[in-house]
């Protein structure tokens, strides 16, 4: 854990593996720009018990995360996806902990935005 000037613990940002690859910084930044919107949507679907939309978004992040240089997103989203197989009523309980960790990781990825730059 890193600490800010006031001594508060902050989580280390995560950077994309593909920042040096042609054309990638531009779309990585677009991806990072959309992270807050995606976090809000995930929380909304979860709170509204909208399993279909929630699953769809997790599935999309699983497919795209690694492609944008964030294999951790793919791994974590895949872990959440496995929990969807439980009976419908219990899915939220099953997913809750993983979702918190996942959102926290998405925040760390978003924090990496300013440093990634564009070329």
């Amino acid at each position, binding site marked *: 854990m890193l600490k800010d000037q006031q001594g508060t613990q902050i989580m280390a940002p995560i950077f994309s593996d593909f920042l040096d690859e042609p054309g990638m910084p531009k779309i990585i930044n677009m991806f990072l720009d959309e992270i807050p919107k995606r976090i809000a949507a995930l929380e909304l679907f979860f709170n509204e018990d909208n399993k279909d939309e929630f699953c769809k978004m997790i599935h999309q992040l699983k*497919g795209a995360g690694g492609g944008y240089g964030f294999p951790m997103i793919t791994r974590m989203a895949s872990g959440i996806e496995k929990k969807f197989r439980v009976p419908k009523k219990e899915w939220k309980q099953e997913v809750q902990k993983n979702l918190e960790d996942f959102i926290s990781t998405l925040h760390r990825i978003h924090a990496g935005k300013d440093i990634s730059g564009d070329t």
Partner: protein
Amino acid sequence: MAEENPIPRVLAIDDSELIHRLLETRLQGERLELHSASSSEKGLNKARALKPEVILLDIGLDGMNGFELLEKLKEDSETRNIAVIFISGSNEPMDRVKGLDLGAIDFITTPFDAFELKARVRSALRTQHLMKLLEQRAQLDGLTGLWNRRYFDQRMIQEISEAKRHSRPLSLVLCDIDRFKRLNDQFGHPFGDSVLEKIAQILSGGRTSDIACRYGGEEFGLILPSTNIESGTEVAERLRMAIESIVWPGNPDLVVTTSFGICDTENFGDDITPETMLKNADSALYKAKEAGRNRVESAHPKKSGSKRSKKILRTLFLFCIEFMQSKTFQRTLNRWLKKIQFRECLR
């Protein structure tokens, strides 16, 4: 005759904008034109309109899923031969099996490696290119390089339908080499082959829109889209003269001539079929042969009777009915019948 090698088209069908952006970036620099569709319905319509060489298809699409979409593509003769590569986050072996069994040629799992993606797409495009070459080969005449009879038949159906849809004329020219058997007998078959090749070269060297085919033996077919019989006759006449003036190496005094028969779609209305056009062009060709060869003859379909002649026929018909009902006619008829009966009795 083979077409140029155009830039291949790849269509990505995926409901995730993230994947579209990634594909666009990762496939940049590849010799291909990337198109995208964000749903199965849009994808199916785009596939039909665009006829891409390769489709990159997601499985988990809303509404019609990727497997169902692939089935639809395979049902349609227009999209059946498009190579489909599934791109999916699914790690289920049964999904791969199902996709491949349905006719997909490959399966890429997301997140994909950029180099692997490019290599797989290139490989699919290569296979498609070879398939197209094979298909084209099957439609070309081995000796002359012109389209063959099979292609001619397909193209006639297509061009007639286009002509009807856009209400534009279409001409068909049949060309036959005069006394070709005699040429073969006199100068040998290798020379006969060179005559066919040279004439094919002239026939295919006309306007780019014209479709020259070897119809069979020493007979050629020329489909002339958007051309009426007058313009078509001019085209045929130019070709006839060009063929007549060929100087044959080793036989400078020899003059090889051709006869042409032409017809067009005008005056046929919606009843026109490839068979009727062929029949008419063939009759015109026969007329050219009968009239001494080395000439162009055109066919005009028999027009249905004019309004005036129809009116005369109708009046005549009514008159006959009236006459048959008259007493004079019946008396005459009775007399004839009695005479016949009397003659029968005498026998």
